[in-house]
C-alpha cells in the first residue's frame, strides 16, 4: 500500500527579551545555575508575575509576519502539573484566547512548488527550568535560570506531507523569527525547539491516522531524520498488522530511533484555568499598526528583492534568505565588494562548506563578512587567483587576520610580470616535447582543449600565482608560432 505522511509541528521559540516574561531576571544563556532566578522565578511564597510588554510586542510581530489575526484580548492561563523544574507547580501559558490567531506561511516543496502551511495559533508562555542529572551522586539538581524565559509556541495545522516539508517549514519559521530579531535562532542552546506530530494514512484517505508526538527536537536535520524514522516505524507497525498508539516519543539521534516516553493514558489532566494574578492582555488596532510599521523586510520579500536586485537565481536567493544572518552576511559582502555573483558563490560555496564541516552557524563564523570581502576584492582586482584565494580563506578561517596581510606574508600575490610568465611558458614548452608535438599535429579545433594541459603545467610551476589570462595568451602565441606555416 502507498502511504501518505501527515505532519503538524509545534515550535517553541525563545524570545530574545532582556528579562523574563514575568520577572525582572536576566534571560542570558550559560550563567552559573540559579544565578539568574529571582524570587518570582523561584516561586517563593507571595511572589506575583508582572507581564513583560516586550514579549507581547514580539509575539505581535510574529503574528503579523505569518499573516495571522492578532488577539485583541489574550488571556494567560495556568497549566497545572508537578515537576521539579516547574517551580510554581503550573506553567503560565495561553489556551482559549492566545495572542496570535490563525495564519499561514508558504514553503517550497521538493518538487519546486510551494505549499501553504496553516498556523492554527501561536501563544505566549513561560519556559521551565532544567533538571541536571549529572554530578549529583544519583540525585537531581535543578537549575532555574531558564525558568520564566518567554516562549512563543507556534502550532501548525497538520499540513505537511513529508519530513523534508516539515524541515522546510521549521527553517522558514527560523528565518522569520531571526529576521524579526525576536529570537537569536541558536538551536544548539535551545532557542528553538520542535515537537513533531506524525501520522500516516493510506494515500487518498481523508481521515487522519493516530499520531505520535516526537518531543523536543532541536535541529533541522534531526527533524527530518526523526520524522523519517518514525514514519518507517509506523508503516512497519501497520503493515505487520499492528496499530499506532497515541503517545509521546523521544528521538535518539545517536541510534536514529524513536522510543516511547509516555502514553495518552499517562498524560496529565492539566486543569487549565485563567491565571488570577494576571489581567487579560488587551490591545487595540493602533498598537498593532505601530508594530506593523516597525516590521523589517521578511524572508519572502527579501528573496524576491535578491532575485531582482542581485540577479540571483530563485534557488540561490532562496538559500541565502533561508537564514536572516546569512542574508545579512551576504548583503554586507555585496556592499563591500560590489560583486553580487562572486559574493553568492563564496557564501554558498567555500563559507557554507566550512561552516557545515564544523557544524557552525553563520553567526559563529570565524571569518567575518568584512574579512571575506577583503579577500574577494583581491580576486576581483586580480591580485590573486581564485585558487590562491581558497588557500587564503583557509588561513583566514583557522588563524584569522586579513587577506592582504596573508597574501603579503605568504608571497601569494599573482605574478603578472610578463617576463617571469614568459620564462615559465618557455620552460614548459621545452620540457614537454611529446605534448607539444601532439598539439602541433592536432586539428585546429582540438587545440583549444589541449591548451589546458600546458596551462596546468605553467600554473604548477608558478605555484598557482601566475595570472591565468596572461599564461593562456602567451601559451597560445608561442605554441602557434611553432606551427608549420
Amino acid at each position: 500500500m502507498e502511504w501518505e505522511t501527515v505532519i503538524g509541528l509545534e515550535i517553541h521559540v525563545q524570545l530574545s527579551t532582556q528579562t523574563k516574561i514575568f520577572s525582572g531576571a536576566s534571560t542570558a544563556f550559560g550563567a552559573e545555575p540559579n544565578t539568574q532566578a529571582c524570587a518570582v522565578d523561584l516561586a517563593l511564597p507571595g511572589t506575583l508575575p508582572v507581564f513583560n510588554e516586550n514579549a507581547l510586542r514580539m509575539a505581535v510581530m510574529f503574528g503579523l509576519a505569518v499573516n495571522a489575526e492578532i488577539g485583541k484580548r489574550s488571556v494567560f492561563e495556568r497549566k497545572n502539573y508537578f515537576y521539579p523544574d516547574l517551580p510554581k507547580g503550573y506553567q503560565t501559558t495561553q489556551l482559549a484566547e492566545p495572542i496570535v490567531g490563525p495564519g499561514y506561511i508558504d514553503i517550497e516543496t521538493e518538487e519546486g512548488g510551494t505549499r501553504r502551511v496553516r498556523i492554527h495559533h501561536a501563544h505566549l508562555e513561560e519556559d521551565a527550568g532544567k533538571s541536571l542529572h549529572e554530578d549529583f551522586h544519583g540525585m537531581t539538581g535543578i537549575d532555574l535560570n531558564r525558568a520564566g524565559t518567554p516562549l512563543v509556541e507556534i502550532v501548525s495545522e497538520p499540513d505537511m506531507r513529508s519530513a523534508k516539508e516539515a524541515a522546510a517549514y521549521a527553517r522558514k519559521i527560523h528565518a522569520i523569527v531571526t529576521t524579526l530579531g525576536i529570537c537569536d535562532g541558536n538551536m544548539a542552546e535551545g532557542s528553538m525547539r520542535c515537537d513533531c506530530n506524525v501520522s500516516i494514512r493510506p494515500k487518498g484517505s481523508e481521515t487522519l491516522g493516530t499520531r505520535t508526538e516526537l518531543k523536543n527536537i532541536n535541529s533541522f536535520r534531526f527533524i527530518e531524520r526523526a520524522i523519517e524514522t518514525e514514519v518507517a516505524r509506523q508503516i512497519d507497525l501497520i503493515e505487520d498488522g499492528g496499530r499506532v498508539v497515541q503517545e509521546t516519543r523521544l528521538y535518539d539521534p545517536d541510534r536514529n530511533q524513536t522510543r516511547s516516553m509516555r502514553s495518552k493514558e499517562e498524560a496529565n489532566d492539566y486543569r487549565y484555568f485563567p491565571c488570577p494574578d494576571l489581567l487579560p492582555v488587551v490591545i487595540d488596532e493602533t498598537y498593532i499598526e505601530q508594530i506593523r510599521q516597525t516590521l523589517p523586510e521578511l524572508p519572502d520579500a527579501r528573496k524576491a528583492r535578491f532575485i531582482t536586485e542581485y540577479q540571483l537565481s530563485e534557488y540561490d536567493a532562496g538559500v541565502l534568505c533561508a537564514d536572516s544572518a546569512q542574508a545579512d552576511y551576504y548583503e554586507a559582502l555585496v556592499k563591500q565588494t560590489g560583486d553580487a555573483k562572486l559574493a553568492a558563490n563564496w557564501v554558498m560555496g567555500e563559507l557554507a562548506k566550512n561552516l557545515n564541516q564544523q557544524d557552525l552557524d553563520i553567526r559563529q563564523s570565524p571569518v567575518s563578512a568584512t574579512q571575506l570581502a577583503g579577500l574577494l576584492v583581491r580576486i576581483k582586482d586580480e591580485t590573486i587567483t581564485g585558487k590562491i584565494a581558497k588557500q587564503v580563506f583557509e588561513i583566514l578561517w583557522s588563524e584569522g587576520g586579513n587577506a592582504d596581510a596573508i597574501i603579503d606574508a605568504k608571497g601569494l600575490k599573482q605574478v603578472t610580470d610578463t617576463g617571469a610568465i614568459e620564462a615559465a611558458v618557455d620552460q614548459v614548452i621545452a620540457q614537454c616535447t611529446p605534448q607539444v608535438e601532439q598539439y602541433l599535429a592536432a586539428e585546429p579545433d582540438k587545440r583549444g582543449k589541449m591548451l589546458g594541459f600546458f596551462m596546468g603545467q605553467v600554473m604548477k610551476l608558478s605555484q598557482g600565482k601566475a595570472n591565468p589570462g596572461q599564461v593562456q595568451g602567451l601559451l597560445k602565441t608561442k605554441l602557434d608560432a611553432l606551427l608549420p606555416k
Partner: protein
Amino acid sequence: MFDLTLTQLADGLERGDFSSQELTQAWLERIQREDAQYNAYITLTPELALQQAAQADAQRAAGQAGRFTGLPIAHKDIFCTIGVKTSCGSKMLDNFIAPYNATLVERFNTAGAVMLGKTNMDEFAMGSSNENSYYGPVRNPWDTTRVPGGSSGGSAAAVAARLAPAATGTDTGGSIRQPAALCGITGLKPTYGRVSRYGMIAYASSLDQAGPMTRTAADAALMLQVMAGHDPRDSTSAEVAVPDYTAQLDLPLKGLRIGLPDEYFSSSLDSQIAAQIQQALRQFEALGATCKPIRLANTARCIPAYYIIAPAEASSNLSRFDGVRYGYRCEEPKDLMDLYTRSRGEGFGREVKRRIMIGTYALSAGYYDAYYRKAQQIRRLIQQDFVEALKEVDVIMGPVTPHTAFAIGEKNNDPVAMYMEDIFTLSLNLAGLPGMSIPCGQVAGLPVGLQIIGNYFAEDKLLNIAHQFQQATDWHTQSPVKL
C-alpha cells in the same frame, strides 16, 4: 498606655509623652506576659522591634517623623518579612525565613512602623475559627473557651486583648471582618486591588485582600493610609488615587441612604444579633441616615460559588509547596513521587488538604464547566446584585456573622456548618467590594459586629460612617481585658 488607640499613641509620640522605644518595650513585655492565654502570636520579634523603634526615635529627633513613625503594630504571619519566619500558620513553612518583604510590610517600614511580631492564623488563611493553625488555636479574649474567628484570628485577638495597638489581616471570604466581629474590634476589607498582594502568601488570588484590624475606625484610616496604593509588582493592584482617609472621618451622615438586604436578615440570623443590628440602625437614623430594604437575590449562592472558586485557585497556588526548593521536606524520600506525596501529605493540615482536593476536582477535565465556569457565572450575578443595589443606596448594612463566637471544637468536625458561618461575608470578596466590621453590641457578653458595605474604592466613606457611629456609641471601647 495599652488602652490608648493607635491614633492616641501617634498623638502621644508627637507630644513626646513617650518614645517609640518605651512604647515598644512596654508592648513587648505585655505580650510576653499575657499571650500564653491567647496564643495570638506565632513569632515575636523583640530585637527587630526595638531596633526599628530606636530608628523611629532618631527620625523624630531629626524632625523627619511622619504620622506613623514609631507606632508598634503586628503583622499577620501571611506577609513575607525579611529574615523572620513567615509560616502562614503551616507546618509546611515552619522553617521558612522569607528573603524579601511583602510590599505591605515595606510600606509600613517606610512609614516608620515598628513590627512587634507575626500573628497566628488559620493555615494558609483557610478557616473561620483559627483552629486550623499548626501553632494551635487562638483563644477569644472575651471567653478563652471560644474561637476568635478566622483566618486573621491572631490579629483580632491581639488587638482585642491589647497585645497590639493594631494589626494587619487578610480577607479572602471574611477573614478580617468575621474575627473582628467575634473579637469586638474594627476590621476593614478594602476593595480588591486597593492594597498590594505582593509578598502576601496567596490563598485565592482573585479574592485575597489585605486590610487593617484596629480598635477604631480612625485607627483603620491611619493604617489604610499606609497600606493603600498601586504596586507595579502586583498586576491586579488598582491604579486609583488614594484619598486622605483621616480627613473625611468627620463628615456628617445626614442624608446617608442605607440599604438593608432582606437576605441578610433571614432566619439563619440569630435573633439577638438581629436586635443588636436593629439598634445600631436606629443610631444611624438618629445621625440623619435613612434605611430601606433592598434585595441581594443571589446571596445564598455565594457559599457554593466561593467554595468552588477559592479552592480551585488554592489548589494551584499551593502547588509550589512541593518540598523541592523551600519549606517542609519529608525525611529520606525514596523517589520524586514519594518526595511530593509525603512532603505535602505531612506538611499540610486537614482543611488545606480538603480544599486542595475540592479545587483539584472542580478544575478537572469534564468538571470544569459544571463547577468552575458555573461558579464564575454566579460570581458575576452576585456582583451585579451589588452594583444594582448600590445605585439606590450609598451603603449596605447587615450582620457580619449569623452567630457570636462559638466554642473551640464545636464546629471543627462539621466543615459545612463552619462554611455556613461565612454567608454574610463571602459575597463581598466575590464582588470585590469593600466592607467593614465594627462592634455594635453584645449578646451574652460576646461582641456583635455590624457590617458596612460600600461601593468600589469607597473606603473613605466606610471609615467616615464607622467613625461617626463610634463617636456616638461606645461599643468599640469595650475591653475584654482588665489593664
